């Protein structure tokens, strides 16, 4: 079997995988960070705490696969709307991943000592300045490994998009198999591509860790 004949199909799958991963990763990072900040011990109110904890419970408690199916089949039917598969898929991934990112950011902020908040208060820092200049840079050191782990997991979760007909990497492989009827080399190739992506991501993480690019805590 000549896999090179399917080069463009594989590339198309890789591009779609990356598009879904980057979009979902970016939005989940933004939403998760905001919710993590709002739910940290210092800033949480009883209402925000209940709402955010309920959200993370749902986002983490329902499998990503089920969330994708709900986003693609249930929500459009309930609202009488036609939602493009890619949008539904990314929406489901963002919903799911944001729950985890929220927990990671919240626990990271909670590890920063209360004294740092108090020091900012007595030095006249506004709350945004406190977060931006003092708290988040210190929290980042603690949350980076977990964040990288979450985004690595998100990359692999994009393979579930195949089930709603999005031609990402896994779906591309399935399409090749349906033509060639030879799954072993195709699935091995798909697995290797995911491994390479994960490996690159881990190398980036190690590089950042060694260079101390996310904080100079000594």
């Amino acid at each position: 079997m000549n896999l090179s004949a399917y080069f463009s199909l594989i590339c198309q799958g890789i591009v779609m995988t990356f598009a879904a991963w980057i979009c979902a990763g970016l939005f989940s990072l933004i939403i998760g960070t905001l919710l993590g900040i709002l739910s940290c011990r210092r800033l949480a109110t009883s209402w925000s705490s209940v709402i955010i904890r309920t959200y993370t419970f749902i986002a983490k408690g329902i499998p990503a696969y089920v969330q994708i199916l709900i986003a693609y089949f249930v929500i459009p039917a309930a609202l009488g709307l036609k939602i493009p598969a890619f949008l539904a898929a990314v929406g489901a991934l963002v919903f799911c991943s944001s729950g985890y990112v929220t927990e990671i950011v919240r626990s990271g902020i909670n590890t920063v000592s209360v004294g740092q908040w108090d020091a900012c208060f007595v030095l006249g820092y506004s709350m945004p300045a406190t977060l931006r200049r003092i708290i988040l840079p210190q929290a980042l050191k603690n949350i980076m490994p977990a964040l990288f782990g979450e985004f690595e997991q998100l990359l692999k979760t994009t393979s579930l998009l195949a089930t709603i007909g999005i031609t990402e990497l896994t779906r591309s492989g399935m399409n090749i198999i349906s033509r060639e009827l030879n799954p072993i080399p195709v699935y091995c190739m798909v697995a290797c591509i995911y491994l390479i992506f994960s490996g690159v991501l881990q190398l980036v993480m190690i590089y950042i860790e060694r260079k101390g690019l996310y904080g100079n805590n000594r």
Partner: protein
Amino acid sequence: MVIIDNITVQLQNKIILNNVSCKLSIGHITSFIGLSGAGKTTLLKSIVGLTKISDGSIMIADQELLQLSPLQRAQNVGYVFQNFNLFSHFTVLQNCIDPLLIVGMNYHDASTRARDILDQLQMLDFVDVYPSQLSGGQQQRVAIARSLCLQPKILLLDEPTASLDPINTDILVQILKKLAANGLTIGVSSQDMSFVSKIFDKVYFMQAGKIVEFCDSIEEIKNNVLISQFIVG
């Protein structure tokens, strides 16, 4: 000057400060002494706004504390924490510069002022060092420098000798006396009798959330049973 008028602090239905009135005068070191749990730290935290008062008023330089904006408050009152609370991801210089950048000063001016104050506190050789690489005494001098960079009228220090050896305690005594001589209003909470006897100026004795004795002269210490017991032992 700080005038504290009948303040009460209640936390979780427990009265921590009960109708406390006192005064911190310009150019003097006012010490609040007493056993643990007497309310010394709560009193200092109330002055800087970290602890909300339930009743009474705190006047700082003729202005009500609650009417000051966070920046005004920071430029009026400096506070040195017992465990210093330096920003661990910043160097010594960055710790001193960052609060100045927050108040809108440009980097060059902020750096000049920070270096000048660090020099006065003999910390200029450590500008590029991170707080965790410093000794307790050095960390404290950086914390004092960070507060002084905002040029406050009042400087409060919570248990400043808690993690200092005798040599660093003596250095701190000299620094505080010099600052007071330059017109700074200083408030100190302490249960270190040796330290208090060295900086003895105006002393309030606190017990169970109340001020029970006041003495403003070492010569009159015999008239104040609790203070003399505390200082003399």
